């Protein structure tokens, strides 16, 4: 479904043209209904991979194919027609919410932007359903990001991604701020969607037991290289 070929990425550091190689010739693939996990030390470049696939930064080299079509390359930016299919759950939930927008509106906005609901009223209902799915009371929808807790923010971000019924979900440390129960709940939702709609997941996490528990393949990222690890 998604094929990543020979991706490399440098980051600028310092004033002159000094750069640092973060990703070096990365290749992997994700099949439909598959959970692929990436682990690695902190700062190894996992989030960078996620951001490249979701189209917010461009790779320096390499191509990414989605369903056989070229999705991203150094001189092709993410084409909007796949926006709905590939969703990222970012690592820092607070920073990725508009401080002046109520969290419920943030979800409703995404739904409406993709025409997934005919009217605002229905969008509101969908939002409530989504919030329930991620174990949040619907009153929370009326709060601003500064008025919710870390875990709640993380779940809002997840709900926002799920709202679009994506085909590929990139979850970057998505359960790191959740309690065990909520985490289990989210994982179950994801597994459900996977069987029902053929969702694939790129799961980025540190939590070894968690990763072990439900992924099909595990990659380990270290010093810019991606190494396949067999499930133990």
């Amino acid at each position, binding site marked *: 479904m998604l094929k990543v070929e020979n991706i490399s990425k440098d980051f600028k*550091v310092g004033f002159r043209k000094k750069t640092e190689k973060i990703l070096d010739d990365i290749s992997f693939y994700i099949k439909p209904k598959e959970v692929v996990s990436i682990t690695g*030390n*902190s700062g190894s470049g996992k989030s960078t991979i996620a951001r490249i696939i979701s189209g917010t930064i461009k790779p320096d080299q390499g191509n990414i194919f989605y369903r056989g079509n070229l999705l991203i390359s150094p001189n092709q930016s993410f084409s909007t027609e796949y926006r709905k299919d590939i969703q990222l759950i970012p690592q820092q939930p607070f920073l990725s919410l508009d401080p002046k927008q109520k969290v419920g509106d943030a979800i409703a906005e995404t739904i409406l932007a993709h025409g997934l609901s005919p009217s605002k009223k229905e969008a509101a209902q969908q939002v409530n359903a989504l919030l329930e799915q991620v174990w949040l009371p619907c009153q929370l929808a009326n709060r601003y990001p500064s008025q919710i807790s*870390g875990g709640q923010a993380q779940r809002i971000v997840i709900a926002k991604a799920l709202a679009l019924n994506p085909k590929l979900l990139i979850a970057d440390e998505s359960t790191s701020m959740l*309690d065990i*129960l*909520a985490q*289990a709940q989210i994982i179950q939702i994801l597994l459900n969607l996977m069987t029902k709609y053929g969702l694939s997941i790129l799961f980025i996490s540190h939590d070894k037991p968690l990763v072990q528990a439900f992924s099909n393949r595990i990659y380990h990222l270290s010093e810019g290289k991606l190494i396949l690890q067999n499930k133990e």
Partner: protein
Amino acid sequence: MKKILSITGLTIDSQLMHGSHRIVNDLSFELEQGETLAIVGESGCGKTMTALSIFGLLPENCTASGTVTFDDCNLLSLREKELSRMRGIDFVLIPQSGADFLNPGLKVRTQIYETLKRTGIKDKRILEKTACDLLNSVSFQNPDSIMNKYPFQLSGGMAQRVVLAMGLTFSPKLVISDEPTRGIDSNTSMAYLKELTSVFSDSGIVIITHDISVADYCKNIFIMYAGECMEYGDCTRILNNPSHPYTKSLIAALPINGFSLNSRKASIPQDFLNTGCTFYPHCPQSTKKCQTDKPEKQIIDQTKVWCHHVKS
């Protein structure tokens, strides 16, 4: 052992447009010198708010009542000026989610240095060296290049570790660390916990977490649900032999136990139930009594439990 912190009847209310809403209800616990306490609870149950209230850093629309006794003075009644003198010296907060909490406009170096300067170090070279040591202790290989970066150039875990490192600068009596290990691999987080307990061996440490393995590391554990205390006592005893139904379901949901979920829905009730146990709507064992009466504190094996189903 000397008592460092003792909290009784801590209640936090938030002011919203159409009235007030209770976040934390009647919490009590205490902390001795050298003790590590884990606060565990589902997300949104009020852990961070509890920590913030101790520091006097609640958001504008929230107020705390009750008593927070630290060093023989009630922190809740202190003025902002006195509190700000104590913050970072007498007690330290290590916040949840480092990247959100670092100033995006300042270099890591500036932010570490200004923290270090609070402890009285002036010399540039000593500053540099101490900062490097600190960063090393949270498994950074090349501290110097990290210090020259801006927070947005760090990865999530790196930012978290920078914040942890900053937390280690002080020699306070009380440390509250809010989900310290979020987004860090387990080796680093264990190393960090070791460092934390050895650096602050004389202080009281509170670790807010949802990671049972982290909680395992602590002496006592305090289990919260929706702003109220469920179970409080020795850590190993509670984890191995949970008595409260909520604690039981927590442990059942661990990945090793196969994500098993008891019937549960929305996480926190928006209004506190004046009567009855807070957990009863989701409790597999709930009875009529749970709905009407507030559970009393029970003590089993030196563990405090608030549940009708547990008999001492």
